[in-house]
């Protein structure tokens, strides 16, 4: 039983690319769900649009990666408009249903044989991220920071990733202190009151959905570049649920909630994961209860339980203020 390596794995995960990706997705959800009260359950759809935006641009059209970033952002704006136009005038749960359906549509289309030429079918696409790694200033093969070991490429990815996380967090902080941000919070609290003050609540919600969706696309960029391949089944609804779990864990409607939430979320996930794997491989747990492949499934169950317990007992998360998050009066 090697508790040291379990902890090493957990610390690596807490600062690694996964934490970056989900922090980015959760920042977008924080704007939509935390500040505006929009139930976007299709954040993975925005991530997929971003990831495929760069992958298809580079591999199929032969454009540069940087053009691909623009394509991905533009596509996420189009997706937000498409989803927002019919649903933002309606009750909140319609947006939830439509966004979750749309994210499945995107995954099914991406993995279909019909669009194989563009998206690579269920195998996905790869070899598009070179121009990002060409800029890598870290030449060494391996860098270690205490328990955390990173290759040069990973370190480059993580540096840029956390930089973007920081920039977006600051941007959101500034935005939410502006008059614009106060309107969004007011919509969350009482939409009718906002409308009676002459604000176009529909258009404000649309802007929130678009900006949050673009942040989802940025999460998709990070996902695609960090893994250097896009596979459609990585963009299933679980991604969205993980991002929600991270956001609610840290505290929705707080500046640092999504970032800290994602770090803690991945720490806990990696901790339970490698602890269970250690126990299984050392035969501390009988094969009849859990096998190696089932460890990965336990992780999802824990996320489910965690989401339920948080929403029941501490919906404001670790740092949140319960009064701030009056989702229902």
């Amino acid at each position, binding site marked *: 039983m090697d508790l040291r390596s379990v902890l090493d794995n957990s610390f690596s995960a807490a600062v690694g690319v996964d934490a970056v990706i989900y922090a980015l997705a959760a920042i977008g959800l924080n704007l939509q769900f935390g500040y505006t*009260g929009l*139930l976007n*359950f299709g954040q993975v759809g925005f991530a997929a649009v971003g990831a495929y935006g760069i992958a298809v641009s580079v591999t199929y059209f032969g454009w540069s990666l940087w053009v691909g970033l623009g394509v991905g952002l533009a596509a996420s704006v189009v997706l937000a408009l*498409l*989803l927002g*136009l*019919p*649903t*933002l*005038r*309606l*009750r*909140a*749960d*319609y947006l*939830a*249903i*439509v966004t*979750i*359906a*749309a994210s*499945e*549509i995107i995954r*099914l*289309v991406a993995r*279909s*044989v*019909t669009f194989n030429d563009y998206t690579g079918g269920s195998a996905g696409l790869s070899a598009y991220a070179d121009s990002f790694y060409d800029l890598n200033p870290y030449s060494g093969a391996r860098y270690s920071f205490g328990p955390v070991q990173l290759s040069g490429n990973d370190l480059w990815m993580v540096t840029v990733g956390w930089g973007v996380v920081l920039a977006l967090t600051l941007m959101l902080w500034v935005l939410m202190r502006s008059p614009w941000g106060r309107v969004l919070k007011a919509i969350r609290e009482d*939409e009718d009151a906002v409308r009676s003050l002459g604000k176009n*609540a*529909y258009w404000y919600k649309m802007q929130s959905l678009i900006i949050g969706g673009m942040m989802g696309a940025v999460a998709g960029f990070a996902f695609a570049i960090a893994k250097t391949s896009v596979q459609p089944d990585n963009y299933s*609804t*679980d991604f969205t*649920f993980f991002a*929600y*779990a991270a956001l*609610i864990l840290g505290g929705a409607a707080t500046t640092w909630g999504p970032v800290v939430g994602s770090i803690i979320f991945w720490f806990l996930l990696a901790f339970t994961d490698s602890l269970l794997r250690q126990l299984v491989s050392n035969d501390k747990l009988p*094969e*009849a*209860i*859990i*096998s190696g492949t*089932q460890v990965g*499934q*336990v992780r*999802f*169950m824990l*996320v*489910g*339980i*965690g*989401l*339920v317990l948080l*929403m*029941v007992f501490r*919906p404001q998360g670790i740092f949140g203020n319960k009064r701030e998050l009056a*989702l*229902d*009066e």
Partner: protein
Amino acid sequence: MRKLILIVLAVLLGGSVVLGGGPAGAQTDTTEAGGGATTTTTEGRVVGVSGVILNDDEPVEGVVIVVKDASGAVVGEATTNADGEYDIPLPGPGDYSSTLDVDSLPDGVNLRNEDRATLEFTLRPGQNRPLLYPLGESDRQEVGGVEKFLQLLVEGIKFGLVIAMGAIGLSLIFGTTGLTNFSHGEMVTFGAMVAWWFNVNFGIQLIPAAVLAIIVGAAVAALYDFAFWRRLRKRGTGLIAMLVISIGMAVLFRYFFLYLFGSRTRPYADYAVQKGVDIGPISIAPKDIISIILSIAVLVAVGLVLNRTKIGKAMRAVADNKDLAASSGIDVDRVILFVWAAGGGLAALGGVLFGVTEQVSYQMGFRLLLLMFAGVTLGGLGTAYGALVGSLIVGIFVQVSTLWVPVELKNVGALVILILILLVRPQGILGQSERVG
């Protein structure tokens, strides 16, 4: 005219289906056994695939099957002999994919489902499993436009009724409690799996197994409400918080099912393969006729309960105005408990019917859930009849759209329709016009 040529794949089990411990318990990957040949497990030949390729009960010789491992390397290849048999030893347990070389089939003989030439499967230690390659005449050459349309229409009605089984419960729960229950799909999966458990592990015939599954499904759904949702309502948990909680529960249940059941799809022991019966221009398997009749009977019964009985009237009253219902002496909690039980029983039946057509898997409920939402939204959230009409439209649309849309994208069309309907008529076809915002 479409003539379905059915296929039976022999299952060569020998003593070799050794079932691994593990919480999944005994799992046999059998389809309807058609031939009785057996192999024995000998040393050095621990796992593999074997079976018989039949076309209209006649063995087919010279069919080439290639097996690749997870990395894509070819690990086994075989050509069927004069009795249509093949036997491919494989290096060990693991994930494989097998491909039937369609060019090696005789002229005029095709895979019944041409998209299923490549199958993915997992071998457990000591397991020798068959590959399911049903043959039949290719429908593309055989069926004219109108006949194919009618065929798809009937399949669509059947599918729509299955969706309705889940959608009505979803809609009634929404109507009485305001909860958009994302874990409803898992109730469908639960019913299908309980029936599978009784059917395959205990050898109970599918019909009594389905009845048991409905009872268990209703009881567990009632318990789910009593032990969980009722407490949340008493705590004053908001509706949006409850929606997120239902998603958490859905994730928990779905992966718990995966943990217990494994990731593969498994058929029931009965009615897995049935010859179609020709009725006019269409061909339909008896199990599908039963499925349609049964669904209609159950849905009529639900309608009668809602309209003619005291509890039905109470349910509609609670859905209409909870406070008013409570003040006129209706025990709201009891009514909601009844709604959950009914929703659970209907979902279980829907799960069994879906499992008979598409086999049982841990994800079946989630796949159906999005179509249920489409049906419910199309018909109008909160109305039982709206859910029925909406589900039928979604089911028919999904099937008929395969005339123009590739089969793999058929569900996409239904979800696109959902979005379009919200643009034009957000309250649904039968819903009351009520706009917020």
